[in-house]
């Protein structure tokens, strides 16, 4: 019997398929349902200290071919109120990973501690949020800041800490080294992008700029997973454009111990988790594996 289970920083996953942050994880009931319908874990929406409305609609644009552009703008109810959603989601009795964003190491620590109190299995640091000091820059592009954040969070909680990094960088290894105290890396977040409607003569998102996700960014995600695995051997969760079983295997061969699925959940529906799981069983014979975790890094 093919074994699809895997582990990331000691957390057992029944299959390598997790829900990515920001997709169907605002409402506790939705997360619970997604866990019941096949995801081995969910990552929450990125949560901050205070309630935020984010940008007004349109916040997403379907670009066709499985690609999406979004600028939701980190809307969230604030950490205190979000505990209620996690409580509901925990009824599914599977790992929940709390994603958090902030602008200082202190903010990240407070958020991480609250997440730990709410009973999540790990914390994911969204290091792609805007930097207060640098204009337009992400926190993740300031290695000193990244180092302080990871250190502060690691000192505040006992559960594993994952750093989610941006692909908008000239050197991912610089950020990886700065975040080396993390228990693992989540690669990658969306890529800076934009689309213009030529009839409206306007950007299609209310915010103008947005982040590209979906099929198009898979080769970018694969590259960074491969590079970081090769350079560090660290534990990695691959994200970006996973939409079928082949994509999962590709990420795992590049070095990921598990993957997260975002955009494709929208295009395919929540059944994507069960459908990919079924296809993974089918691929086991064609590719020749009995334990999927044996494939981690097979292409390195």
């Amino acid at each position: 019997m093919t074994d699809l289970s895997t582990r990331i920083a000691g957390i057992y996953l029944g299959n390598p398929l997790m829900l990515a942050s920001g997709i169907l994880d605002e409402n506790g009931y939705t997360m619970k349902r997604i866990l019941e319908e096949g995801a081995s874990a969910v990552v929450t929406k990125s949560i901050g200290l205070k309630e935020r409305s984010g940008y007004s609609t349109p916040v997403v644009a379907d670009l066709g071919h499985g690609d999406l552009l979004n600028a939701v703008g980190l809307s969230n109810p604030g950490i205190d109120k979000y505990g209620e959603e996690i409580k509901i989601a925990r009824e599914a009795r599977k790992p929940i990973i709390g994603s958090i964003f902030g602008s200082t190491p202190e903010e990240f620590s407070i958020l991480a501690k609250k997440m730990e109190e709410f009973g999540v299995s790990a914390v994911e640091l969204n290091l792609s949020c805007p930097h207060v000091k640098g204009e337009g820059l992400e926190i993740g592009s300031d290695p000193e800041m990244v180092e302080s954040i990871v250190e502060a969070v690691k000192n505040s909680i006992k559960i594993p800490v994952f750093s989610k990094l941006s692909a908008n960088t000239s050197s991912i290894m610089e950020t990886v080294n700065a975040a080396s105290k993390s228990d693992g890396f989540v690669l990658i977040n969306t890529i800076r992008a934009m689309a213009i409607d030529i009839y409206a003569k306007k950007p299609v998102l209310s915010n103008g700029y947005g982040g590209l996700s979906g099929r198009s960014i898979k080769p970018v995600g694969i590259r960074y997973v491969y590079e970081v695995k090769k350079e560090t051997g660290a534990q990695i969760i691959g994200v970006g454009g996973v939409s079928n079983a082949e994509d999962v295997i590709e990420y795992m061969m590049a070095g990921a111990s598990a993957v997260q699925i975002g955009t494709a959940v929208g295009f395919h529906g929540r059944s994507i988790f069960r459908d990919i799981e079924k296809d993974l069983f089918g691929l086991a014979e064609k590719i020749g594996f009995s334990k999927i975790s044996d494939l981690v890094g097979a292409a390195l």
Partner: protein
Amino acid sequence: MMENVKIKWKKEETPTVSTLGFEWTRDVKIGQFIMVWEPGVGEIPMSLSSVTGTKSITVKNYGPTSASIVSKSAGDRLFIRGPYGRPFTMVKGKKLLIGGGSGMAALRPIIDSNSYGVVSARTSSELLFANLFEKGKVYEATDDGSSGVKGTPVDVLRKIDLDFEMIYVCGPEMMMKSVYDYLLGKVDQVEFTLERSMKCGIGLCDSCSVSGYQVCKDGPVFRIDQIGKMEEFGKWKLSYSGLRTKM
């Protein structure tokens, strides 16, 4: 994928509601919706109030985006994507349509000679599409009693025989909740169209979800037995930020 169509005609249905007709070649089923984008203003969901031939949306002037849509004229461009969502189950036999406010927009394409209607609104002038039913087949309910029963659709339902092959309900969630509570146990062929704030329309953002179901994708049409399993129906919704809010 965003498309754009030219508005062919515009018709004022009530003082606050207008219908915009446009040619669009996509295949649309009754109950499905589109996302309508007003560049520089916002993007909101709208049911198709006509799904064959010239298609249409029937829009209530409510907030900024709907106001902007309603202010358009024939010849203007409409930016739309879709159609999205699961449609109504169509039946041949006698059917009852229960619509509150702009909710009648989604039900409009169902109206035929075998349809009965319960049309409700705040006041008489806002009763939408009541005139499209055959004579004697429509019941009205107004908050102010200016036309028909003074009260809600439930006040009408109490007075009529529920012998229909299908009952279709669309309107504000609290109205639908009261209809649901009344119909529960009496009939089981009922479909409700839920309305939640929608950001993406394609099952990604979670803003429209009710008890784990995405209204944009699993709905907007749900059967009464599905509604019965939704702890959040008529009780909770998430605000634009994601804050759990009592209805």
